[in-house]
């Protein structure tokens, strides 16, 4: 099923504000998820998006360990060891839920049935390559989970990340230096400083937060296009 796209013309209340907190970013992503979309939220920061979806959004959450219509994290007293999300956090079940096995769950992802997945990243390239599973450090133990399947499977892949590392290095780069998760798979990048659409023409900056297109162009080693009028 195809989710109808919500118009991006309304830049929203966050536009022009300073760098976004993780919660602000999650709110921003949530606002862009169309009514009734089927969505997978990656482990970690993307999980926050769920808290910002309006009660009447009709958005259905998928967890790759075999469930649609996953509810919020389980509270004290609701814990069920048989019911967790992909991060192994106890969660709950909403009315209309469905359970299925791993092969069916990943067939659903790989077959292009999810409208959106939201993932964290170490790096995203100017052409939408994604690196989010492996630092490439020689002593690192590689662990990919479902990241590669999600990256190539969902109709739209949204990344949530800070634009720079703590050391100040850009995470939006000409080419990823970390091992790739997927090629040309990212559609949009939400960061604390700006939102970028990956388009056939290049990276388009659709919103900025406490910075300007010119400042971003100075700090990033990738060509940037202005938001369309």
């Amino acid at each position, binding site marked *: 099923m195809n989710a109808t796209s919500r118009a991006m013309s309304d830049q929203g209340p966050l536009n022009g504000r300073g760098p976004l907190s993780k919660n602000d970013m999650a709110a921003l992503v949530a606002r862009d998820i169309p009514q009734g979309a089927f969505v997978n939220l990656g482990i970690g920061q993307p999980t926050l998006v769920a808290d910002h979806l309006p009660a009447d959004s009709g958005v*259905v959450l998928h967890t790759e360990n075999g469930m649609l219509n996953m509810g919020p994290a389980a509270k004290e007293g609701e814990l069920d060891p048989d019911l967790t999300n992909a991060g192994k956090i106890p969660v709950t079940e909403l009315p209309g839920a*469905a359970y299925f096995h791993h092969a069916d769950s990943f067939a659903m992802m790989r077959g*292009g049935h999810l409208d959106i997945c939201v993932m964290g990243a170490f790096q995203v390239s100017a052409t939408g390559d994604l690196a989010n599973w492996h630092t490439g450090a020689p002593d690192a133990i590689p662990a990919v989970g479902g990241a590669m399947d999600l990256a190539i499977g969902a109709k739209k892949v949204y990344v949530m990340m800070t634009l720079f590392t703590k050391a100040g290095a850009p995470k939006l780069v000409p080419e990823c230096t970390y091992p790739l998760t997927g090629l040309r798979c990212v559609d949009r990048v939400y960061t604390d400083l700006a939102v970028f659409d990956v388009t056939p023409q290049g990276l388009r900056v659709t919103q900025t937060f406490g910075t300007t297109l010119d400042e971003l162009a100075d700090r990033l080693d990738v060509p940037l296009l202005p938001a369309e009028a």
Partner: protein
Amino acid sequence: MNTQLCDHADEAVAGIEDGSTVLVGGFGMAGMPVDLIDALIRQGAKDLTVVSNNAGNGDTGLAALLAKGRVRKVICSFPRQADSWVFDELYRAGRIELEVVPQGNLAERMRAAGAGIGAFFCPTGVGTLLTEGKETREIDGRTYVLEYPIRGDVALIGAHRADRMGNLVYRKTARNFGPVMATAATTVIAQVREIVETGEIDPETVVTPGIYVDRVVKEAATA
């Protein structure tokens, strides 16, 4: 997008275009979406490719669609039956194309379409007429044929019960091709005997999750 609950089969089949590939569920009459086929006949789309296990029985349903000349090609495993006279006559007159696919390959090729598999090596039909000209490969001492996905523009399926989110359950062997076809088509339309409130189907028993289902309509006979 949320599943659309339709008031009538005519609403459910609206917009099916000429030239579409239509997956039609059912094995014989079990699971056959009769109301949807009748509505498709009224709707008028033509030049269709129909993918189904059989090629119509008697003079109703799929056979009636064929009789109206709307179907260019049938992809199926078993066209010839005691009561497949409509298809038989069209075929012998050279007025319809036929691709015969072993029943399991028919199911697996649709599953591949729904599961994002580009092609698969299958042992069925090796050395037979039905795989002539297809790529083969020996893997671990056994010969396999490379088979490609079958995708539908539309799937018409029959299920037993739906909830308002489009979650489906089937009944007994009427389940057959419905769950696979629901994964393999761009627009999936289900006719069901009963539509219940969301939450009334046990999540452990859902066979086709609503994510796969675009439109649901209740069978006329039980409406």
